[in-house]
């Protein structure tokens, strides 16, 4: 019983120290503020997702065409708009990369 209590107390000390570690390591940090996504980062994330979707859709269309699920006519009809969408997403991302404030972005 005594051994169990000693072990329990040791365990408690260990976990308390571990939980308090961020405060023990940085008693007076310059900033304790948790980073937050701003409007700019959110928009950039949306554009990255849009670009990934557009590129994945192009890849799928290509593969579906090569495996015969999409006829030549359907392929030609869908390819143009998809390429345009992918190009727009890439361009918007590029523009943002050049102007991180996003002031000149047109989407």
């Amino acid at each position, binding site marked *: *019983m005594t051994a*169990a*209590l000693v*072990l*329990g107390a040791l*365990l*408690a000390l*260990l*976990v308390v120290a*571990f*939980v*308090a*570690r*961020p*405060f023990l390591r*940085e008693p007076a*940090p310059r*900033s*304790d*503020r*948790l*980073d*937050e*996504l701003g409007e*700019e*980062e*959110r928009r*950039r*994330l*949306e554009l*990255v*997702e*849009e670009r*990934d*979707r557009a590129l*994945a*859709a192009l890849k*799928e*269309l290509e*593969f*579906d065409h*090569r*495996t*015969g*699920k*999409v*006829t030549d*006519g*359907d392929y030609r009809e*869908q390819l143009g708009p998809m390429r345009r969408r992918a190009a727009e997403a890439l361009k918007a991302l590029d523009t943002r990369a050049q102007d*991180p404030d996003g002031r000149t972005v047109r989407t």
Partner: protein
Amino acid sequence: MAALGRAALLLSFGLVLYAVVAGSYAAWRRRRRLAVSAQNALFAAFGTTVVAAGVLLAALARRDFSFVYVSQHISRKLPLGYALSAFWSGQEGSLLLWLLILTGYAALAVWLNRRARDLVVWVAPVLGAIAVFFSFMLCFVSSPFDTQPPPADGAGMVPSLQNPYMLAHPPMLYLGYVGLAVPFAFAMGALLSKQTDERWIVVTRRWTLAAWTFLGVGQLLGAHWAYVEIGWGGYYAWDPVENAAFMPWLAATAFLHSVMIQEKRGMLKVWNMVLVALAFNLSIFGTFLTRSGVINSIHSFSQSPLGGWFLGFIIVATVFSVALIWLRLPLLRARTRLESLLSREATFLYNNLLLVAFCLTILWGVVYPLLTQAVRGETRSVSKPYYDFFLHSFGLPLLLLMGIGPLVAWRKASARSLGRMFLIPFALAVVCGVTLLALGFGSSPPGLLAYTFSAFVGASIVLEFVRGRRATGSFVRLVARNRRRYGGYLVHVAVLLFAIGVAGSSAYQSIREAQTLRPGQSLSVAGYTLTYRELARVQGANYTGFRAVVDVSRGGSRIATVTPGENSYPIEGPANEASVYHDPRTLGDVFTTAQVVRGNVIDLKVLTKPLVNLIWAAGFIFVFGALVALWPDAVEQRRLTERYAAAAA
């Protein structure tokens, strides 16, 4: 050592409570150190829960009957492996297993995704809140560390649980049930933090897939346990507790399909949130059914005080998730629409509707007897015909869709391309159906339809691989470039084999009810002749028993010997021992059970189960396919890294 176990559990409770309170405050007030401290509390809770689990395992191994739990579930003579498996064969132990897996998963999920700080900061308190419930139950309602003056021996383990499958089946199910908490926590974290971009989906896809695989394997192991142990020759009886594991699996299956539409088209955001919440709440509901004693089942524990607590938790979790989804609806609007009802995404949508409809009809079948009991005070059971009707109504179209989906292009498919893609599978299915009809398989229309649809699905999957290989040049490159798609097709092959096995073994089985035999006498069933040779006595570590030695022959030549019988456990009582001959020629089984009538006269019951072994073979392919889909994907990883970078820019 019970005191150490109690202390460790109290620490776990305190830590996860801290993770909820401090974690929520830190996320709300944007406090960095407090958020890290709350996440550390989750890591530490895993450590303290490991200590508690270690104490219980040690008590079981040492047969320490001063633990009430140990004395209630094992005996001195019980072999060590089964004694350790008592960890999850009782109510308190299985709650501890839940908490152990949950804190382990929570620690791992938070640590692996620490880069997505804005998301994880809310995920930690959600996971902590689930852990608070389970640790509270263990500390204050149903503790595995209650003590007593030790009795001379324990009550032993129910004989049917003394089976190797019980070493793996419950932990697998729990890994699945609890695993669904992680995508749920990330989904709720995304809603709470208003970060409804697709990171939560990319991050949790593998968690969902792993949980879904564990649930599937757990159910198959349970089905095989029921088949070899219970002695009725079946593997699934629509028992409420079996259904309890099946429902979240169906919801997770729907989610795994619909999530692809969100990733590829940015659609179904609300639906995916609903599915994740449904799968998680159904996993808690499943635990509630097993733990509360609210239903009678061979799997459930006796009446316990847990029912009300679980019900309360389910209500809170459901209301919380529905309210949060409702509040964040404006963030979940899709920007694109379904372009055509003849497209891959449309087939996924039909698949989702069927899966959820099937899931909800099963839920109604489980809940209805409970409601009639609560409202009218009378028990009305929902029996096999109800479930079979919906299995045929939803399961057969789902099977067919599994063949249609891969043949249809994304976005929209023209009638011409569809005609070309469907030609071979359709022709094969017609030939298969007509041939089977001519061979007399029309005795079971659902069985005939299942085989016909299976031919269609099988042909469509083979064609997918052949066309894909032609397009990429090699199978290895084909699969390596799109593990998710081709891993999924392998899982479809498993489901196909499973469907064929179920149809064969249920629709076309032969039963020879118990027939009294003396040594030397025979009986015949479905082309097999079984000759009873003698009665033999057996002795194990903690039982004695008998085995009827029965020769199985076909076409005049002996092909096997089966030994059905009965074990008698001095503490736990008698248990049937079925004996099965797996026939490699038919992929079916000759399933036998025997009971002594008097002296060496026995009653022998025989079932032949055509194609039943395909069900178990499907399990291996299922795991292989899931592993292919789970395997790390460099492209996906690169995208995720880029999104973290974009979020941190």
